[in-house]
């Protein structure tokens, strides 16, 4: 089971990734880490030092890396690969689709700095469409973890798990949400907070603002439930259905285009059920990315707790 933490700390996600992999590589020599010349940026270079036989830097060749990982997995090895999210999902899309998913191979992809997390790398490096692309490929699992505890657990779950698994998360700090040692269930959303009026559904970078917004709404007499949808595919429709029943409003929060991401996925369920409940999607509204600090970009694209509060109040 998972529990929310009282602590107000934070963890650097790439550190969690590298430390967790390091541990898994000690225990299991079939775990292989792959990089495409961003080992300095991801910290994966450290794995090359601690486990030279289990680390491969393919150079700046992302499509090649995906194919190589697929080949490794055909011999029963467990590849974890890192590159920036755009260079995985956009640049190597056909390789992920075909030699990964379609061919039934295993890829554990760490697509780092999705959405506004690209920050000063700017528009060329910004993915507001990675969920859309990956969601359209059958059998691909998509994860958007919200903190270091969840990420550590998730990486462990990938051992022995076959298929294409896309983990999108920043390299940088994320605020602590869960207690150390929390255990989750793949494909099962976490109801972090019950509430009678509004349902807030978020993941990853959107989760903390959603929790903060719920607090603010409480003070204003609006009772908001908050759900952590860290598994975006396969989507936990059951929890959505049970949570949305009786609510006056559903709001999704995502570091992604509001089309075909988390909000899009929820919209599909709500429309098919003819739920009749209004839905608002907080996220990027069909714009390209740009350079700026993370704070600037969150404000610019409307991903703050204030934006969520405003959306709820305007829509009720």
């Amino acid at each position, binding site marked *: 089971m998972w529990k929310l933490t009282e602590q107000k700390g934070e963890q650097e996600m790439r550190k969690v990734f590298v430390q967790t992999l390091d541990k898994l590589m000690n225990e299991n020599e079939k775990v292989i880490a792959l*990089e495409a*010349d*961003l*080992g*300095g*940026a991801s910290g994966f*270079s450290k794995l090359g030092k601690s486990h030279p036989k289990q680390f491969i*830097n*393919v*150079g*700046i*060749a992302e*499509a*090649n890396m995906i194919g190589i990982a697929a080949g490794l997995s055909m011999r029963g090895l467990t590849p974890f690969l890192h590159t920036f999210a*755009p*260079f995985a999902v*956009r*640049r190597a899309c056909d390789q992920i689709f075909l030699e990964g998913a379609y061919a039934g191979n295993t890829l554990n992809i760490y697509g780092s700095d999705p959405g506004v997390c690209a920050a*000063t*790398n*700017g*528009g*060329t*490096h910004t993915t507001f469409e990675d969920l859309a692309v990956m969601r359209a490929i059958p059998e691909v699992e998509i994860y958007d973890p919200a903190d270091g505890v969840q990420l550590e657990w998730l990486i462990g779950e990938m051992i022995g798990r076959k298929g294409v698994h896309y983990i999108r998360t920043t390299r940088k700090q994320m605020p602590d949400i869960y207690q150390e040692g929390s255990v989750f269930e793949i494909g099962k959303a976490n109801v972090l907070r019950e509430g009678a009026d509004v349902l807030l559904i978020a993941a990853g970078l959107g989760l903390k603002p959603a929790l903060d917004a719920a607090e603010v709404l409480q003070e204003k007499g609006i009772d908001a439930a908050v759900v952590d949808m860290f598994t975006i595919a396969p989507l936990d429709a059951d929890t959505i259905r049970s949570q949305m029943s009786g609510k006056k409003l559903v709001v999704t929060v995502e570091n992604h285009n509001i089309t075909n991401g988390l909000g899009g996925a929820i919209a599909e369920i709500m429309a098919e059920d003819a739920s009749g409940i209004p839905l608002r999607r907080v996220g990027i509204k069909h714009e390209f990315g*740009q*350079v*700026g*600090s993370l704070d*600037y*970009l969150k404000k*610019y694209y409307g991903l703050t707790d204030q934006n969520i509060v405003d959306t709820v109040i305007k829509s009720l």
Partner: protein
Amino acid sequence: MNENKLKELKRGSAAIRMETLRMMRKKGYGHLGGAMSIVELLSVLYNEVLRYDPQNPSWDGRDYVVLSKGHSGPALYAALALHGFFDTEWLGTLNDGGTRLPSHPDRLKTPGVDATTGSLGQGTSVAAGLGMALRIEEKDQKVYLIVGDGELNEGQCWEAFQFLAHHKLHEVIVIIDHNKRQLDGKLTEIMNPFDLNKKMESFGFHVISADGQKEESIYDALQQAGGVKDSAVCILLETEKAQGVPYYVDREDNHAPKFDEAANRELDALIEELRMQVEDGGK
């Protein structure tokens, strides 16, 4: 090359280096290594070689520059500002929210930027397309394609080179910034390029080697390359990552360092030294 012209070029290099370092110093970080290794090249291009009109950046008759190694954008911005495309004041806004100077070049944001780059490898094909358009239109303009040696890991580069060679597309002058390092370390340790000269030659290119730290050598190579009409052409520019910034030349972290206090002191001293060179008219 006569002495005055060489002096002018060296002064141009000092100015580009100074402005680029200032931009990064202000931010506290930057893709320093690869920006520094094209400073002399940019000085020669913008002072002596390119046809352009800063008042009319989209002039139809201009030569094109495709900086495929887009992370070196700041050096290009310095060159563009110094050559009148926009106010040097802009340089201070690098990477700020709302800036017109993003870390990676954007043709829709910055006057004088001909191609949007940042995803390594992609600029090579765009340059090939531009060159093909010039061929179809029977123009004598050129496309100067600047590509990183680590960038050559990307298969797309070789797809573009194959196209250039097949079509003998000498309208595109491929310039490889051979600074021997990529992000994670030395090329020979990350992905061995073997003999780039032979590799390009066997791909069908006329290859010209030049010393990328010497303006006169770069100038001669560009002149020679401009005269090639019967095959694709490539300048293999021998450079050093972070050249001109002794503090960073041999450092492992010279690709994109964050500056600590020691680095700041070094950079401040160097910027001052460069400022004096620019004012004295080069050394």
